[in-house]
């Protein structure tokens, strides 16, 4: 007597399932082996049958009962809990007022459509369609209340249908979808009209049609606002969900970056230099995320010249704790010559950070048609170029030597107490016949 273990769950389920209780445990849907809701595999496991046998029996039953079995299947899906899960979907759906209203609205729409079709042409199709009113309502409730993995299966099952009707924003472009939808609608309309005319072939057709039209008008008038309201509520609900997801995403990022840094800052409050460094680092990360759409710690996939300048800024700030203000104008692909220019610029910036004593270093890079220039400037103590000892080769070798080997120039202007300015220039035409890359969408003032 397996269900004794779950008395609270079972007293909610309709009594007919109790009567079917037999050997084995309680009846549970089997989400692991399912085509739809896993009802067939659940029944098979419950009674000890082969799954395929149960499925074939179900299909036969559907044909014999002209579709009622489908509705029964959906109801079973609703009320039978999944194996290993909590209460049934139906139990959850009872508290989903929005879903119940939506199900009722869809069912009423379907009933209306069936009434109209039935009035025009009552065939076997209609007797098949009536039980599906229940199926549709049940599926709506399942859709809204099923756990995420079951929803995924359903989405997978109806994906082709959605693509045609434009219910969701799928991979196909909105334009193509609406063309497809309009085409299908047009074909249906043409087919319907042709059908009507071929069936009666006379003007007498218009008389029952008039009655039907009146009926449609009446029902639309009565229920239309209600349908509209439900549709609107659905849209609002979806928007709210999207907003909540966005919020969660932002909260996660803020936590990973800003909150962590704030915690670090509180712990290092007695070390102003470290605090400033942390704040700068965080500011830069946040800016690149907010204004350039780059995730923190994301490495530039295609390393361009401007990205290289940013890299220098970041490294020097992190290693030497001196703020670097970088401005880049234009951008271009990186090649060997420009890499050499960047290496020289890095050396000059590191020099400024180590020796100048300035509280900020300016880095300005500009890509023009014919040349790339880069200026490293500080307002620090400066130096006397003549007095630099011969063994300190940083500036002359790493900067000037690098530039002249690549056909560029490096100019250093400095004096004691006047700050230092290193200007690097490299002609572009020799290596870049195509010139600089056009400015990117938001190219200006990168921090």
């Amino acid at each position, binding site marked *: 007597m397996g269900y004794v273990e779950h008395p609270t769950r079972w007293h909610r389920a309709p009594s007919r399932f109790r009567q079917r209780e037999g050997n084995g445990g309680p009846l549970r849907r089997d989400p692991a082996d399912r085509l739809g809701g896993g009802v067939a595999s659940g029944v098979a496991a419950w009674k000890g049958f082969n799954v395929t046998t149960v499925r074939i029996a179900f299909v036969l039953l559907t044909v014999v009962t002209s579709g009622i079995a489908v509705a029964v299947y959906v109801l079973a899906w609703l009320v039978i809990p999944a194996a290993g899960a909590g209460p049934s979907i139906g139990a959850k759906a009872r508290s989903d007022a929005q879903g119940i209203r939506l199900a009722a609205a869809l069912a009423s729409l379907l009933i209306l459509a069936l009434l109209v079709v039935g009035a025009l042409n009552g065939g076997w199709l209609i007797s098949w369609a009536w039980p599906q009113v229940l199926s549709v309502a049940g599926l709506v409730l399942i859709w809204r209340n099923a756990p995420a993995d079951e929803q995924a299966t359903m989405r997978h099952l109806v994906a082709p249908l959605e693509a045609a009707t434009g219910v969701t924003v799928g991979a196909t472009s909105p334009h193509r979808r609406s063309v497809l939808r309009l085409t299908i609608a047009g074909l249906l309309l043409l087919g319907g009209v042709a059908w009507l005319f071929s069936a009666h072939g006379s003007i007498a057709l218009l008389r029952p049609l008039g009655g039907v039209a009146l009926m449609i008008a009446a029902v639309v008038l009565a229920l239309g606002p209600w349908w509209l309201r439900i549709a609107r509520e659905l849209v609002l609900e979806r928007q709210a969900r999207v907003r909540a997801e966005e919020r969660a995403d932002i909260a996660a990022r803020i936590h990973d970056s800003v909150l962590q840094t704030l915690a670090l800052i509180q712990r290092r409050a007695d070390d102003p230099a470290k605090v400033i460094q942390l704040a700068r680092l965080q500011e830069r990360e946040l800016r690149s995320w907010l204004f350039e759409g780059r995730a923190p710690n994301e490495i530039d996939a295609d390393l361009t010249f401007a990205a290289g300048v940013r890299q220098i800024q970041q490294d020097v700030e992190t290693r030497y704790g001196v703020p670097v*203000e970088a*401005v880049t104008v234009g951008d271009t692909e990186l090649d060997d010559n420009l890499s050499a220019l960047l290496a020289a610029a890095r050396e000059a910036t590191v020099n400024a950070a180590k020796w100048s004593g300035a509280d*900020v270093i*300016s880095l*300005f890079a500009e890509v023009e048609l014919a040349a790339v220039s880069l200026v490293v400037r500080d*307002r620090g103590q400066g130096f006397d170029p003549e007095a630099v000892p011969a063994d300190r080769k940083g500036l002359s070798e790493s900067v000037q030597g690098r530039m002249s080997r690549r056909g560029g120039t490096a100019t250093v202007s400095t004096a004691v107490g006047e700050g230092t300015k290193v200007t690097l220039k490299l002609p572009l035409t020799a290596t870049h016949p195509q010139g600089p890359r056009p*400015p990117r969408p938001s*190219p200006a003032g990168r921090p």
Partner: protein
Amino acid sequence: MTGPHQRAPRVVLVDDHGLFRSGVRAELGRQVDVVGEADDVQSAIALITELLPDVVLLDVHLPGGGGQAVIQAVKTAHPQVRFLALSASDAPEDVIAVIRAGARGYVTKTISTIELADAVRRVAAGDAVFSHRLAGFVLDAFAATPSADDLKPSFDPELELLTNREREVLRLIAQGYTYKEIARELYISVKTVESHVSSVLRKLQLSTRHQLTRWAAERRLT
């Protein structure tokens, strides 16, 4: 920085961040005359119309329509009130929106107190103030050769291109030079530097360049 404005400029602070307002007020207190504070668009418009300050220090992101809404509401009736935009962001569309609405300058909130006081005095005297990032952005937007997008029938070289001298001045601003340093570097007077920057500001406000109009359109500014 003296000129016609010998007395300290009268300043209204508009920022929805109370902490920031009190910080700026404490720092600027001795150098400018802070006559009022507002924290949203409606109260700012009312306060500015009542006090008619020399300079409004205006946050770009304000509840109730943003900084440009304040500028647009005030500038026609009181063109003598000047606006200096202040923002924590450097997004081009922020910059362009507020400049095209009529601000005389744009600085970021990380600016030092001395520089901010200097910027306020400059704007009070009718000059333009560019941060180094704004200078870089303008150079980018006015790239040397206009792209095909820019060659509209309305293309007016007077407005759509920067002169070489203006470019030089902007480059030095982007390198963190003060106006005085620029004047010395280029062997021109500080007044000439100021007039170059004002001319760039005018082009920024009137140009129909594709990049500028697109960024402005993103903010529904036209």
